[in-house]
């Protein structure tokens, strides 16, 4: 009788360091991830890293609600997000750690699905999950499942990408349509819910980045325009490099449904989150090569050149401008506060 109780939902005991925890680790996590490093069962995963002498490391926690949404689940996000962040350095992404925070009462079958998705996504990205952790918090101490991943990769010799590298004359590319992830999530929110065919774009882009880097070896930087969207990414680049940037509004690929949802809710699509898009800044002479490489790569079919880096006028502060189809411009700022729907 208590079998079903124990197995169908997560209980506090699953995080207590004892036998129940051993079981959830063995049956849920090791089963799915099963890297040799993880199976060793030590507190740290030990793995090889060809000796370039430089590593790239990144981390993200994933707290998305709901955990399952059109186009994916939190597990896909958790792998893609960190793979993409590490990959932006130009590193060959190799290893992930993975920490779960579970709310007691979370359905075990959903956890299985999430973990399965993570395993598949890691496989797609070609990375191994070599160490992990599980905590269970009391009901009301989390919203179902939170996942943290950290990732490590080796940076090839000579590669030194940075948001501070942008130079006037450079060209800005984006690897596909913007806003899909944020709107897919928004469509599920209580009080705002709508139905659409928009799906989250969550995808691992490490291979796309590698392809662009080899086609456009002088690429200045990559960044995935997640929370805060393109607006945050470009403002960060502009500030780090001390330049101005200009985006051609009509050149930015946006799906009609995303556009419609943004209009209904009063959002600026350039501030909406993406989880499977990459912004790249490349020297003008390598822009076409970069674009072709993006378009040829998986997840890059809608890539576009969307703008350019401009010199900073004397006395001016780094800023991003959007140029409209009728020749006017406006400032594109970072989001202020949380993104709130605007109705009246």
């Amino acid at each position, binding site marked *: 009788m208590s079998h079903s109780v124990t197995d169908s939902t997560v209980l506090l005991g699953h995080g207590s360091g004892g036998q129940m925890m051993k079981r959830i680790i063995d049956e849920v996590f090791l089963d799915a991830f099963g890297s040799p490093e993880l199976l060793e069962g030590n507190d740290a995963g030990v793995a090889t890293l060809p000796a370039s002498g430089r590593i790239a490391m990144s981390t993200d926690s994933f707290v998305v609600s709901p955990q399952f949404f059109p186009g994916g689940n939190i597990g896909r996000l958790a792998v893609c997000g960190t793979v993409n962040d590490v990959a932006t350095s130009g590193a060959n992404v190799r290893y992930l750690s993975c920490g779960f925070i579970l709310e007691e009462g979370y359905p075990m079958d959903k956890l299985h699905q999430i973990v399965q998705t993570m395993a598949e996504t890691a496989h797609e990205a070609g990375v191994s999950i070599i160490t992990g952790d599980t905590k269970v918090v009391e009901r009301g101490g989390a919203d179902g499942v939170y996942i943290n991943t950290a990732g490590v990769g080796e940076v090839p010799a000579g590669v030194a990408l940075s948001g501070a590298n942008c130079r006037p004359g450079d060209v800005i590319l984006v690897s596909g349509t913007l806003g899909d992830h944020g709107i897919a999530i928004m469509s599920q929110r209580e009080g705002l819910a709508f139905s659409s065919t928009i799906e989250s774009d969550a995808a691992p882009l490490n291979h796309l980045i590698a392809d662009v880097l080899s086609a456009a070896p002088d690429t200045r930087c990559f960044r995935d325009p997640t929370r805060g969207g393109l607006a945050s990414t470009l403002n960060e680049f502009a500030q780090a490099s001390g330049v101005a940037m200009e985006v051609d509004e009509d050149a930015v690929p946006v799906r009609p449904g995303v556009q419609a949802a943004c209009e209904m809710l009063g959002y600026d699509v350039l501030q909406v989150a993406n989880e499977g898009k990459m912004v790249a800044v490349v020297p003008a002479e390598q822009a076409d090569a970069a674009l072709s490489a993006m378009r040829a790569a998986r997840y890059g079919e809608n890539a576009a050149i969307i703008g350019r880096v401009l010199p900073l006028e004397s006395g001016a502060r780094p800023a991003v401008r959007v140029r409209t189809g009728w020749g006017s411009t406006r*400032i594109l700022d970072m989001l202020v506060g949380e993104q709130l729907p605007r109705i009246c």
Partner: protein
Amino acid sequence: MDFSAFRDPKLARELIERIHELVGDRTINLMEVCGTHTVSIGRYGFRSIMPAGLKLLSGPGCPVCVTANRDIDHAIALANIDGAIITTFGDMMRVPGSSTSLAAQKAAGRDIRIVYSPLDALDIAEQNPDRPVIFMGVGFETTTPTIAAAILEAEARGLLNFSVYCAHKTTPPALRAIANDPETTIDGFILPGHVATITGLAPFSFLVDEFNTPGVVTGFEPVDILQGICMLVQIVVEDRPAIDNAYRRGVNADGNPVARQLVEQVFEPCDTTWRGLGPIAASGLAIRPEFSRFDARTRFDVPVEATVEPRGCRCGDVLRGAITPSDCPLFGRTCTPEHPVGPCMVSSEGSCAAYYRYRN
């Protein structure tokens, strides 16, 4: 049907050119009454591309901006009722009252939820029968029919735990106050398209009759706005004051009588205070006594803190069109969207916020 032609850059460019031709060297002050127009004009970058002599002033059409500080404090006081669920449009969340905001109260543990429609608030009331569910009602003629309909539906569904804190206002009295203001000279009004969707054109004719000032009801797509400006400039230039309609697909002369009837049934006019404009007779809407059980004002007796006006903020002057936001000495210095001093900087439709966000 395909409405994308209203975003056609080529049409937009041609209208811009036409506006340049019409304005020439003249100085013309237009006021866009509606906050959504303010946001759109900023977003479309129109100020950066208008003739030098054409000034687009922002009017009193951001509902949270014109809501008196006292009303915001009252709304926040309601949020502190034990067990209450506050429902609100997103716009209201970050607006500072005298000492706090709904967003900060939510962070402090109050149950405050953003909804897209007052009908969503009814569903929440149904799901939480033991808790008072209060909807924060702000907005103009476009929004009030939806609130009236929600109150009637609450009654029909027997949702007696639902109520509305009503801070609704009507547009024409504010326009009259602005037209009367000796400090501002407005040559023409870009009239609010979706208000007129409900009201029709008649409520605006006093502008011509009493003040000899023209107005054009305008839609919200780039081509709509440019066409409205174009028509209004043409009227000004030709000096033949009239109320015209550049948004015929969404506004007919008589508006929406069904909606007006619902408003009439549930609300009655009342005097109310506008931030910047002060008290204006019969410019607000109050819930009629027959529906007082849905009126959070009368239903809950909550202590409202002493009102403190933000120091140095010139929102009032901005809302009257007496100054543009950048004339305020705090604009962009101590007052930014991240650290707003006045509501005009925090509401996404606030003139100061729109000017700051899309500054060109």
